């Protein structure tokens, strides 16, 4: 499907925002200003954006992972609120109580990053049940890593979605590693075949190719919106950083990440595709690059300046009401 100029610009902006957000976080982490664990999404932007650009705030949902910043940005969560949350500050989207691994924004249909591998797919099918019941045409998308693909919860969620014909798109991101262990070792057989074994139509695409992801997602979403049940997409993905920041990556060949940044950069791929086809010009994207840079700069500055959460908030919001 041919995307409009606006659609292309929007997609590029989101992908660039994710990349800038993550690369900047790496710098800040090295400087020691970011608390907790940090799992960066650099390299996988086309996957989150390729599908989320086709989702709506009000009726469509995503469920995310420990590596959730990219999913959040793609689904439209406020970048500054996210940055404050990662810094665990008062005005973070979760008031500083969630941190990097728990960013959620229900108004945006973002059901939360999730620090439990395989935690989100059961929740996402629940959102799909809500959509099916209350929000006709709505769809839910759980993101699932190659490591998470082995968790029993994922198998259960696929079977349930298939049985109940829920509007779900299972978006597998196979970036080749779960922590320090290769998918070729730990993820037996094929993820695509697993989905098909539950009677779920599935395809495999190159996650560095925004257009391939977008097209596969378009079909899957259409199927879901039409009430035809779940689909699955396995996107081959490329993790530019280690599992978390600080990972010495001894399990990877010395040049692997450098090579991936050369050959499998979704931003470069996108740029050359759209310029070659004369859909956008370099200048369009350069301008976005500048704007994004400024936005992230501001987001970091504001996050650093934001106050810590109030002491009292420790005790708040455990319940809506406990009496």
């Amino acid at each position, binding site marked *: 499907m041919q995307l409009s100029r606006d659609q292309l610009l929007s997609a590029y902006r989101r992908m660039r925002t994710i990349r800038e957000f993550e690369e900047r976080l790496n710098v800040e982490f090295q400087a020691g200003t970011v608390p907790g664990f940090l799992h960066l999404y650099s390299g996988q932007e086309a996957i989150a954006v390729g599908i989320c650009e086709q989702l709506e705030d009000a009726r469509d949902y995503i469920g995310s992972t420990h590596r959730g910043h990219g999913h959040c940005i793609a689904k439209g969560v406020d970048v500054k609120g996210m940055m404050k949350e990662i810094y665990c500050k008062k005005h973070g989207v979760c*008031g500083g109580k969630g941190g990097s691994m728990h960013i959620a924004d229900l*108004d945006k249909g973002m059901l939360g990053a999730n620090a439990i591998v395989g*935690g989100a797919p059961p*929740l996402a099918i629940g959102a799909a049940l809500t959509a099916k*019941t209350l929000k006709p045409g709505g769809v839910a998308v759980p993101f699932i890593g190659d490591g998470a693909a082995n968790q*029993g919860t994922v198998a*259960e969620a696929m*079977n*349930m979605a298939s049985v109940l014909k829920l509007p779900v798109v299972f978006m597998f991101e196979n970036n080749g590693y779960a922590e320090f262990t290769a998918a070729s070792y730990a993820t037996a057989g094929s993820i695509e075949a697993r989905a098909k074994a539950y009677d779920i139509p599935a395809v495999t695409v190159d996650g560095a190719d925004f257009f391939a992801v977008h097209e596969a997602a378009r079909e899957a979403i259409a199927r879901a919106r039409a009430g035809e049940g779940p689909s699955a997409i396995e996107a081959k993905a490329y993790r530019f950083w280690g599992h978390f920041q600080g990972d010495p990556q001894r399990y990877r060949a010395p040049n692997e990440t450098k090579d991936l940044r050369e050959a499998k950069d979704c931003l470069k791929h996108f740029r050359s595709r759209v310029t070659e086809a004369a859909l956008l010009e370099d200048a369009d994207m350069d301008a976005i690059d500048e704007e994004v840079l400024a936005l992230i700069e501001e987001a970091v500055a504001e996050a650093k300046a934001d106050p810590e959460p109030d002491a009292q908030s420790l005790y708040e919001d455990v*319940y809506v009401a406990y009496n």
Partner: protein
Amino acid sequence: MSKKTYREAITEALRQEMEREERVIIVGEDVAGGAGGSAGGGEAAGGVMGLTAGLCTQFGRERVIDTPITESAIIGMAAGAALTGLRPVAELMFADFIGVCLDQVYNQAAKFRYMFGGKARTPLVVRTMIGAGMGAGPQHSQAIYPMLTAIPGLKVVVPSTPYDAKGLLIQAIRDDDPVIFCEHKGLLGSQGEVPDEPYTIPFGKAAITREGTDITLVGISRMAVLCNEVADRLKKDGISVEVIDVRTTSPLDAATILESVKKTGRLVAVDEANPMCSVASEIASIVASDAFEYLDAPVKKVTAPHTPVPAAPNLEALYLPTPDKIEVVIRDLMDF
């Protein structure tokens, strides 16, 4: 008002809430029953104990949803649905099965609101069957509410009468926080007066089921029934026992218990769970902390032993707290 069983009270609460509110749905294994069967579908069971019988006929399979045997997906789906606008009542057939889906309860549903900075509401109810006494063996007889009581963000309900079962279940369904509703299988057939119209009983308000002045006896779930029996029995011997049925273990009505102990000076907490880190231990610790000056005797608990639930009926009978065991402890304390 009419006589109903605990089982009927639960079914009635479900039916009335489903009538009142479209967003209330039921999910679980065989909650309708018969899906895909050669008899051609229709309502086949309404749960292994028949507690959801009739609901599928009345509300349809869109609202009474049979699921595969995948408790993580059931509870997780219900939690996700609750987070996004439905009000699901999920059935975890036996509470013992919490082991295959605990994460969705304790790391997910119970933490949403806090982790997400107060922006989430999770009106999830998990109905589940607890308790020994039916010869169901070590993996189908446990009283696992203590580990759930420990979890911040969760509410835990343990009704002991048909009246409480209905009122507390309606409260659970209307509540905006995740609730575990523990139905004791040994109480399903018990009878009592239950209003026909809907009503709620607030969480965190214990019931004083016997007033007394000599000793406070606190019971949880079916143990509250035993406590009443003991109180009635000892009354004849001139021992005045105040019985408190906690009704909910989280929130726990410490105030009512403390007030009673301040009057009686003695406490026995009776819990069908294993002893360590039990709700009985929690109650005892609260009393020893906050009513110490009023205590005339050691604080005691009567619980199951630190063993699994044996299958053999004779051993199971020994495993469970009984009125006799409770009576012995009370008499000891009265002599203190």
